[in-house]
């Protein structure tokens, strides 16, 4: 069984609490306009050259982990989108069972997690990047420019619940109960989802869990700013959100402007 790995960072201090090995996989089902690892987006069969990634067997990865095992708290699989390689990751995590290291996945939450019992049982923690609704690809953004402010439409919010949010909340509730949510990030971008509604819903869900890092990040585009300037939330919007989150009672959060 082989996994396409873009890069391994043996010591990372930004992929969960503590010192962790971060393994970035090649290939993602999204094409977010703000991705800060765009080299990891292309699927392996479409990736340009072999310098983009190489295949590792489970054994190879265990070997890499072993080299630095003494110094790390655990391993975080990131990318790209790890859940495109569910079975490979489950195999890896199984092999890691006796290593006394925590196993995390950083995911765009586009695929259901808790329905997959094997995945759930072998993963110790999830860092979740909630996209909000659709893949925030620039083309989708342009097509979606239906409402200036999606929070204003109750009809939209109902549809949003049905098509997106309810499923995510189900998954999240189970993960929260199992204490397997380590971090939640929301990139704030106008035009795809009702920002205030989403932030409010998530905040209410996690407010009792003071160990979860909640990060709200204003969108920055890779490359030129012009493509998304219509979708960038204003400072006033951010102030408003910050106030909202604080009032709901979430302790461990930060807003990146």
């Amino acid at each position: 069984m082989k996994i396409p790995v873009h890069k391994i960072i043996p010591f990372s201090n930004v992929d969960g609490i503590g010192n962790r090995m971060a393994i970035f996989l090649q290939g993602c089902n999204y094409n977010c306009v703000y991705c800060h690892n765009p080299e990891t987006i292309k699927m392996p069969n479409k990736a340009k050259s072999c310098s983009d990634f190489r295949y590792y067997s489970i054994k190879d990865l265990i070997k890499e982990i072993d080299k630095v095992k003494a110094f790390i708290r655990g391993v975080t699989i990131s990318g790209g989108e790890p859940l495109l390689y569910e079975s490979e990751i489950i195999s890896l995590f199984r092999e890691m069972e006796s290593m006394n290291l925590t196993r995390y996945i950083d995911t765009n939450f586009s695929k259901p997690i808790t329905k997959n019992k094997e995945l759930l049982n072998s993963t110790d923690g999830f860092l979740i990047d909630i996209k909000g609704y659709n893949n925030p690809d620039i083309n989708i953004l342009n097509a979606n420019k239906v409402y200036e402010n999606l929070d204003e439409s109750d009809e939209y919010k109902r549809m949003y619940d049905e098509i997106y949010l309810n499923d995510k909340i189900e998954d999240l509730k189970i993960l929260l109960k199992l204490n397997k949510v380590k971090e939640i990030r929301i990139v704030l971008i106008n035009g795809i989802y009702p920002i205030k509604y989403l932030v409010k819903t998530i905040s209410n869900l996690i407010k009792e869990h003071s160990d979860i890092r909640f990060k709200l990040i204003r969108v920055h585009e890779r490359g030129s700013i012009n493509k998304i300037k219509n979708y960038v939330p204003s400072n006033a919007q951010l102030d408003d959100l910050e106030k909202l989150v604080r009032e709901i009672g979430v302790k461990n959060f930060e807003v990146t402007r």
Partner: protein
Amino acid sequence: MRATLEDIKSVIESDVLTYEQKHHILANLAERMLDPEELLGYTKEEIKAHEEGVICDLNEGIGLYRPRYILPDYNLLVKKGCKFLEIEKPNTLEELINALMIFYKHVPSITSFPVYIGELDLLMEPFITNLDKDFILIKSFLNYIDKVISDSFCHANISSKNTKAGKLILKAIGELNNPTPNITMKLDLENYDSDLLNTALETSLKVAKPSFANDKIYSSEYDDYGIASCYNGLPIAGGGYTLPRIRLGTLVKRANSEKDFFENILPSYIDLMLSIMDKRIKYLVEESNFFKSSFLVKEGFISKDRFIGMFGLIGLSDCVNKLLEIKGINGVFGKSEEADDLAIKILEFIKIRVDKHKGVYTPYTGGKYILHGQVGASLMDEDDFNTPAHRISVGNEPELPEHLNQAAKFHEFFPSGTGDVFRFDQTYFNNINALKDILLGSFNKNFRYLSFYGANSDLVRVTGYLVKRSEVEKLKNNEVVRRSTTAFGKGTNERARVFDRKEVK
């Protein structure tokens, strides 16, 4: 090694030395005017070894009149006070601090200032009554030390136990941002306070101290130890008699093959060094009368039986690289298994030979002299070719994980001290647990000593002691600076570019 009248004259006429510095250097020059053949019985070969630059006495002196490193038992001061200095047994924090301030003035060492000032949190804890008031006392005491002990080889220790005093001390050093005192936390892996350790790590990112000593390892080697000067592990109520060093990077140049190195060159210089150490210690104990006349001995603050001889080594990496070159093998110390294996072979050879030797006046170690990873001083051009201790030279460092795995192999050889220094970028402030994992992981791999500092701090750890970058700049512009260690730091930076140490991101 030797001094001349010219040296004396140039110190007297210097326009960049303070009175205190001149005074101290003149004393050192005086004892280096004596003839080592006459006074110590050095042979011509032993003197030649110094002139060649293979053996270096760090200008420690010829007429030795006090041990190089002294670690008084400060607990005794708390229990009994001190008759000679007319200090009463202290009953309050104020009295304790006053007692220590007086006592420190009378603790000699190679620098003329105390190189060990006690395990401060444990000394102070019984006297903490009011956190706010006591913080002010502690902060001003620590500032006193920096301003009066003008030398950052002065070293304080703290434990890893949950004490009020420990927290106050860390808070104070974070605010003061002074090079002195150097501070080490004796980290007990089985019994440490997690919050205190986090605070200590944050403080070290901010002000380059405390450093961390592996308490488990040192406690297995010493019944009661302190960390003094740079990072020297030595017995409390004792210390180190002398610390000469072999420049392995210079020694290797005399060898024409690996066989020659191991069969002739290395063993003969080890023997010269052992003989030199015997002679120095003998003179100190038998002729200088330090142990007869010092109140520290008479009142039991130190005992002759608890002093050890320190066999210093420097330039391991340069030695290994040269030997590999001679053998026609590609490989660089720090990035090659073969280089590491050769380094271990060299250290094992030295240890076996040094252990066989019956040293003098050192019952504490059963007569053995103890290896020390010496960190360097820029005394002559040869120091350009000798990287500190067992370390990889600045500029050749591999990534941190490899570096840690590599360095871990060598710490066991140096019970009287060695250490590694790493510079971390500011993101570690947001995830101090990551730094903690690295520290604990290293100690589990038998590192004995680690220092960290933040990439942006003004305080920088040179090779073992601290300097302020801003003070070095002053020295470069020929201004007078108070701390003698600043001059060392400037020299070492110019030679080994320690200010450019690789940053861990």
